[in-house]
């Protein structure tokens, strides 16, 4: 588990400034939400932490390791960052079984077969999918696919988990359920979570702190309790 520090992050796409002056310190084991309307730069920030986009300027630390710094010409590839990520559309690989999907990160790490087997079984039960290992993604519901994505992200014991609007494709009832499950998973694993959402209620229920973003800037960083008090600012 690790802290995440973003220092003065700026990202330009051509002439458009997507994110600017983004500085935030996230503590070990903390659950932080990036909250804001679509196009406010929250997903872009998340992708820079993951290593899919390179900041135009600024530094990113995970733990004590400098992952990205334009000034010092450092940029760690996504696969070198030990970050778990859950995508909005699950990104569960359709050509692999549930078991193979979840086991993939272990395969990359060249874990032994029996260890892989055990760990996958464990994480299947962690996300409540016991006995689903041999199924293919198209045989699963949206919620079940989302659990596969969660299990896959958690299995390599990442230092940080990034979740990009993971619940936005689920129906309302399932969304409620999954909020608690994700929160529960975090308690069990004590992983640091950065959670992107445009849903205020979701952010408030789940987070320790909320980073409110608008038009590429941070408007407010507050604990969930204080955020609630100042709530009537418009989003």
């Amino acid at each position, binding site marked *: 588990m690790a802290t995440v520090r973003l220092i003065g992050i700026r990202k330009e796409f051509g002439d458009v400034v997507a994110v600017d002056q983004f500085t935030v310190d996230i503590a070990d084991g903390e659950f932080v939400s990036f909250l804001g309307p679509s196009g406010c730069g929250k997903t872009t920030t998340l992708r820079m932490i*993951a*290593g*899919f986009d390179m900041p135009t300027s600024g530094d990113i630390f995970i733990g004590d390791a400098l992952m990205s710094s334009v000034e010092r010409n450092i940029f760690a*590839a*996504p*696969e070198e*960052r*030990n*970050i*778990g*990520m859950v*995508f*909005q*559309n699950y*990104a*569960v*690989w*359709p*050509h692999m079984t549930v078991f193979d999907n979840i086991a*993939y*990160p272990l395969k*990359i*790490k060249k874990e032994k077969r029996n260890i892989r087997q055990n760990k996958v079984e464990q994480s299947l039960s962690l996300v409540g999918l016991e006995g689903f290992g041999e199924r*293919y*993604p*198209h045989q699963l519901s949206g919620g079940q696919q989302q659990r596969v*994505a969660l299990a*896959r*992200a958690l299995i*390599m014991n990442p230092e940080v988990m990034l979740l990009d609007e993971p619940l936005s494709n689920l129906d309302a009832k399932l969304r409620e359920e999954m909020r608690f499950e994700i929160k529960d998973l975090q308690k069990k694993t004590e992983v640091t979570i950065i959670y992107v959402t445009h849903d205020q209620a979701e952010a408030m229920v789940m987070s320790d702190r909320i980073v409110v973003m608008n038009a590429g800037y941070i408007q407010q960083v507050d604990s969930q309790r204080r955020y609630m008090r100042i709530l009537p600012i418009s989003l």
Partner: protein
Amino acid sequence: MGVPALLLVLVVAFPISLIFVQGILSEEGTLTLGFLQRIFEVRSNYMSLMNTLTISLLTVFFTVLIGCPLAWLVTRTDMPLKGFFKTLFIIPYMIPPFIGAIAWGFLLSPRTGFINKWFMGLFDSTIPLFNLYSYWGVVLVMSLYFYPYVFITVAGALERMDPSLEEAARSSGSGRFRVARDITLPLVAPSITAGALLVFIAACSNFGIPALIGTEGRIYVLTTRIFYYIYSGGFEGLQMASSLSIFLVITSALALLANRWYLRKKQFTIIAGKSMRPNVVLLGKYRTPFFIGCCLFIIATMVAPLLCIVLISLLKAYGVAIEWKNFTLANYKFILFEYELTRASIWNSIKLSLTAATVLTVVGSLIAYIIVRTKLTGRRILEFLSTLPYSIPGTVLAIGMILAFSGKFGINLYNTIWILLIAYTARYMAFAVKSVGASLEQVHMSLEEAARISGAGWTKTFRDIVVPLVRPGLIAAWFLGFMPMLRELTVSVLLFGPETRTIGVAVYEFQDAGYYDSAAALATCVLIVIFAGNFLMKRITGGAFGF
């Protein structure tokens, strides 16, 4: 339902089933397995079957080898001008293969080809660099004209693939190449297979390339062998041709079935709902070399052969030096204004294409309407019959036409323009049914129901509501039929009569008889019409059809 169904049975089901009947019936009308005997006991027939299979498989191999990297370059890298290249790489798809064969003949014919002459002069040798009129020559030209099938399907898959599938693998700890092997390749594999099977079918069915390149080197495939038998004439020839046709049908049908089976097994979708930007690989220091490589590929495989045709069409005689004093427009004057035979063929092709395109648009829309909008039983059979003539090789369709309409059953259309008209209409019906059907599916049923509520009958609704709404589909259907008909060769070459030559046949005959300058001039005219027509189609349909 009744009229189009009857029509399809008469011009599609009946002729095609006759081929099989002809194959298993002896002259006295008893049942035999003679068609097997005729293939396996005549060595040259057996060889043509083997050549068809091996040439098609080699072509598949090379088209995959060319098509996949090019698709990757234009969809997933930061190569300069990749949008422009994407259009360029599709051009061979528009060029009739027999014209491509002629062009490559000008470049690589063993004695007179430009490249070989230059090579032999350079090294003072009598051995050409590459003899086009050979087994490998057929494979080369087929590969260069059929790779767009692979290119288009693979580029489409790479573009539409959800980038987060690959990103998830990166986050899981795989490097770039591992992701390509574990995720990207398996997900694109169904598209590669689909493209490869299209190539296989196209290569099996092609007549122009083996006729103009293979025949010269005594390499026969099924299509050219069938052509040979029809030319040798008589009952014997027709029977041989039908027997070979059965094998041609079986070969392409097996490929189609394999495709279905494979796609059913790989039942997953990689297409994400929303538009997205794919992961782009920065080529870095390799950016310029890749760019130059693509430019060279375009120059060598498209610019050079096409330029060669135009050049030869402008020379006083084939083989004279390329100097200003040898340039002339006489070849064009000859084929367009002086020579009665070409003038008649141009006129025939225009008449045929205009009529057949119109007929197939009307009939095709009716069939499309029945398939998409009604619940009539048997509409699946209608769909099958309307797409069948394009799914089978043109050669087979033509043999079916000969068997059905040469007097044996009371109708004798052989050597008339009517048999060509029927064959053309049947052949390209699938285009009309597909493009109008696709447009119809976009129009919600309630729009028609609203018209019915307002008091319009079925005919009025069709005319006032359906037709205007599917207009782009109708225009596309007409063009998609008209353009390939104008330069059709495979079917025409088996069905034309002394009075009913078409443009494709005229080009073929010129080239075959060694009138290269006239062949080049007529081919240039065809190319100009094709490019102009494509441009026009793209304009009229607002970019929905055409390249």
